[in-house]
């Protein structure tokens, strides 16, 4: 790991003032610290958000569930409020990595990182979330820009993410057994007449599946998606799975997610 200067600001404003040039924000460190060890990232300064109390916590008001950027995956997984309002979101957080990773990894870190196989981006997109930062708001549909890229400007700090409470929802993930990241993950959310289907792991970034959304809006049932053939063009081929296999898995996971949402 290359040397850097370390900062531990106590407020969002102080963090924002430091977030310049080659500086990088540090949340749980579960992606960034490993990337720094591999010298994939060599920031001049590390701005540790760990001491900013206002960035952590969960609020639920019936219509939305708002998760602070520094809220750990384990907290979301165990939160009674999240389990009550959006059980699929609590369950998704419990599927990330392993229990040690969930004790450190954060909501803000996951979405800012936008790993193409990460779970949170699927939840953000399917639950039509709003991402609040120190500079304003981003809609889910305009936030994810493909592999490891988002609408965040340099130095912009995610403060919280507000998820819309659906009528019913479920997330199904076909895990890579070694890394636990999604080979394909599908998050289905039914808002009553309007359905959102978000797919992670399959392509270079999270995306919606409009054909499935339309079919499910007409009839929210597994058979509505069971015969939808997903095109393999643009999907990932790597040592874990071919594009053809991933395309097939999208339909299988979508069908299972609808089944789970109906339970």
């Amino acid at each position, binding site marked *: 790991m290359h040397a850097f*200067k370390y900062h531990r600001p106590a407020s969002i404003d102080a963090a924002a003032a430091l977030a310049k040039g080659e500086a990088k924000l540090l949340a749980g460190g579960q992606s960034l610290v490993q990337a720094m060890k591999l010298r994939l990232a060599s920031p001049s300064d590390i701005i540790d958000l*760990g001491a900013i109390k206002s960035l952590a916590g969960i609020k639920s008001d019936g219509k939305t569930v708002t998760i602070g950027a520094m809220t750990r995956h384990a907290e979301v997984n165990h939160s009674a409020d999240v389990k009550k309002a959006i059980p699929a979101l609590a369950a998704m957080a419990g599927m990330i990595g392993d229990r040690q*990773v969930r004790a450190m990894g954060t909501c803000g870190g996951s979405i800012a990182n936008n790993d193409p196989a990460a779970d949170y981006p699927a939840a953000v997109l399917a639950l039509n979330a709003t991402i609040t930062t120190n500079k304003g708001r981003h809609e889910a549909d305009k936030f994810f820009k493909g592999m490891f890229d988002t609408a965040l400007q340099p130095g912009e700090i995610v403060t919280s993410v507000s998820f819309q409470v659906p009528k019913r929802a479920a997330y199904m993930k076909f895990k890579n057994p070694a890394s636990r990241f999604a080979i394909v993950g599908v998050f289905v959310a039914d808002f009553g007449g309007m359905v959102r289907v978000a797919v992670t792991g399959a392509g270079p970034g999270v995306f919606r599946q409009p054909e499935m959304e339309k079919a499910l809006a007409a009839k929210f049932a597994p058979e509505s998606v069971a015969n939808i053939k997903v095109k393999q063009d643009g999907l990932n081929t790597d040592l874990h799975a071919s594009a053809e296999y991933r395309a097939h898995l999208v339909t299988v996971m979508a069908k299972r997610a609808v089944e789970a949402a109906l339970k």
Partner: protein
Amino acid sequence: MSVKVSLKVNGKPATAEVEERTLLVTFIRETLRLTGTHVGCDTAQCGACTVSMNGKAVKSCSMLAMQAEGADITTIEGVAKADGTLHPMQAAFKEHHGLQCGFCTPGMVMNAIDFANSHANPSEQEIREALEGNLCRCTGYHNIVKAIGAGAKAMAAAAAG
């Protein structure tokens, strides 16, 4: 350049000037000389470096020492009683042959203690899921799973007095 890190390790205050890029595991092993916490992979995969931070199991190779500033850390050296009586989870690993070479064991035990604190009587399935972040090259996990089940029950019994 250096920063001052102050935390508690196994109940005792520990303060040192360290390089900013010092990992928590490096601080524990090299500054404090507590070498029971192991480094297996150094890439967040194997869990050999697992310690407890404020009661929660974390991978100490995947965080900076400064991320533990002000925290309460427990390592494998801190779980037995001062008179050497093993922690119920350690005793269960011994009893059920939950180790062969022992390299993964400190991380297994630290993760298992945190897990058992919220699972007094876990199922085999729950234990296997809890071990997703810990790798063992020797045992095939079977006896580790048995040990954790027994250790969890023993911890609950000890807590009930």
